[in-house]
């Protein structure tokens, strides 16, 4: 995974709340393999409306999105993150995100930057005039023109994004602890295992 440090690039404001993962990628496009790419289906149905902000040629090449509360709520589909990432989005700014979306994003190198509702509105307003934004994950700050705002991100996700870490390597290094847990757990919670006799 590509580490995330500082990102400067075109930003697009979507003044909508509840952009759930069904809006980010409608269910009917989820049959395709990851390798086929998801860029063309990002916000597919919303983009049928010519007035949808991402359709504006001025927003071509956007790498940062700003939206209202509850971005990425709903379905756990990681394809929502694939669609954003394949389109070129590397950071989404919003007052709140779906918890599962946040974890999926951090695992795929996409920064979910959480701001206050007030700052979120100010950022959307700033993006009406300005095209470029700067996001600094070290400093946890967003700059647009001469204005700056702080954002929040869970420390673990920040570390993961800064380093481009992968959980599986980390977990493998805990194998001894896992084995010890399993030995203990089998002795104390024998009922929690699966009946060996049951075959599917």
């Amino acid at each position: 995974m590509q580490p995330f440090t500082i990102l400067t690039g075109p930003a697009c404001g979507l003044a909508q709340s509840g952009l759930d993962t069904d809006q980010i990628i409608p269910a009917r496009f989820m049959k395709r393999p990851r390798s086929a790419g998801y860029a063309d289906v990002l916000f597919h149905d919303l983009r049928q409306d010519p007035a949808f902000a991402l359709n504006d040629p001025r927003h071509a090449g956007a790498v940062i999105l700003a939206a209202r509360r509850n971005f990425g709520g709903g379905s756990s589909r990681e394809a929502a993150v694939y669609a954003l990432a394949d389109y070129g989005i590397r950071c989404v700014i919003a007052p709140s995100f779906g918890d599962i979306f946040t974890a999926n994003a951090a695992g795929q190198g996409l920064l979910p930057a959480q701001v206050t509702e007030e700052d979120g509105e100010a950022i959307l307003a700033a993006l009406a005039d300005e095209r470029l934004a700067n996001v600094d994950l070290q400093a946890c700050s967003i700059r647009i023109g001469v204005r700056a705002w702080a954002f929040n991100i869970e420390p673990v996700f920040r570390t993961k994004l800064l380093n481009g870490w992968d959980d599986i390597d980390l977990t493998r290094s805990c194998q001894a602890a896992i084995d010890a847990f399993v030995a203990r757990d089998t002795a104390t919670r024998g009922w929690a295992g699966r009946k060996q006799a049951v075959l599917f």
Partner: protein
Amino acid sequence: MTAPRTLFEKVWDAHSIVSREDGQSLLWVDRHFLHEGSFNAFDQMRARNGAVARPALSLAITDHYAPTKGRDSGAGDPAIADIMQRLVVNARDFGVPLIGLRDSRQGIVHVVGPERGLTLPGLVIVCGDSHTSTHGALGAIGLGIGASEAAHVLMTQTLWQRRPKLMRVCVTGALPPGASAKDVALAIVARLGADGGRHHAIEYAGDTIRALSVEGRLTLCNMSIECGARCGMVAPDEKTIDYLRGRPDAPEDFAAAADAWALLPSDADAAFDREIMLSGAEIAPIVTWGTSPEDALPIVGCVPDPAGMQDAARADHAREAIAYMGLHAGQRLQDIAVDRVFIGSCTNSRIEDLREAARVLAGRQARVPGMVSPGSGPVKRQAEEEGLHLIFIAAGLDWVDAGCSMCVGMNGDLVRPGERCASTTNRNFKGRQGPGSRTHLMSPAMAAAAAVAGRLQDVRPMLTGRAC
């Protein structure tokens, strides 16, 4: 002496292998459910040359794309046939047990788990599906995860998680006639907001919750994700134990398991980060009017007026939702005509849900087309033994096979563009039931009432003289 702990903390602590300074814990996973959409997780594992750590703790089920009609001849759409087949191949290649399309146990993963007794109190259960919160109804931690996390679970049988904050939602008082677990769930989502539960694990408590059947608790916990919560739980009690006893995959040493479960309920003085109180006696049948599950109001109400809203962002949302839904501010909810009805999904497709719908439909005719999809093969057979299917068919509704069906439309069971559907599902997002679809969420009884009336309708007058 150990400090008092909540149900959630007891289950969490029993699964925590390692805790890091940054607040993440590595959790042991007792059950991992997979479905057709899990192909991304299998592909990621394949790309790493990975193997499944504990195949016996995994179970793959065909549900999201399962055809609900004529399934013996397979799926008509080759792309759908292909994605179902990919699950079969992945299960076979990686040695994961499978309940496939033609298996008599097939159904929606969140119905099948509890029904088989695979879902148990005190377990950590994960699935690449946000409604995994459902399993909390039996006192488990049920976590929806993404594909990369699912690949991680497949390869290690563990998951990194940050411990969520704890919220207790306490509901007290007897529910009035006509109100059900779905109405409790919608009332809670309306109260908290669609993101009000984020970063939290919810424990549902209070005598209203205790009085709910296990089926009702499954409906309630299912909707936890609709207020953004990480999971929802109900402490196991006698009802839980009675429900699980004799289930095909329940523990062999059931008595020992039940003894362990008795220790799980939250200690009397355990602390929660947040507490919410609701009066069950004041919960009336509820429907949604907008495009978020938080847009929920009692059926006797009217579509809200954005002009009267203080918060500009909320007013924008309401304006847009009303336009999308083809409604107008101030319109009586009961005046909204519907085009079709769907009774099914992991929220409301269990036997009790079908009985509730049948109680309203018996001897009545549906004015609009509709579909009833039971949650699993066993639910379907039980309903047929009870003759419920005859009531649905006589009313003019389609009685079909089990699967996610019109909840998400992946199998081709779609609400057409511009059509309005009275639905027992959990999400009224734009386009959720198909491009341009308009969804009103409600209980099975209310969906049955809407079928008969051809519009949104208060079910209460229709229950007079009918046995509970």
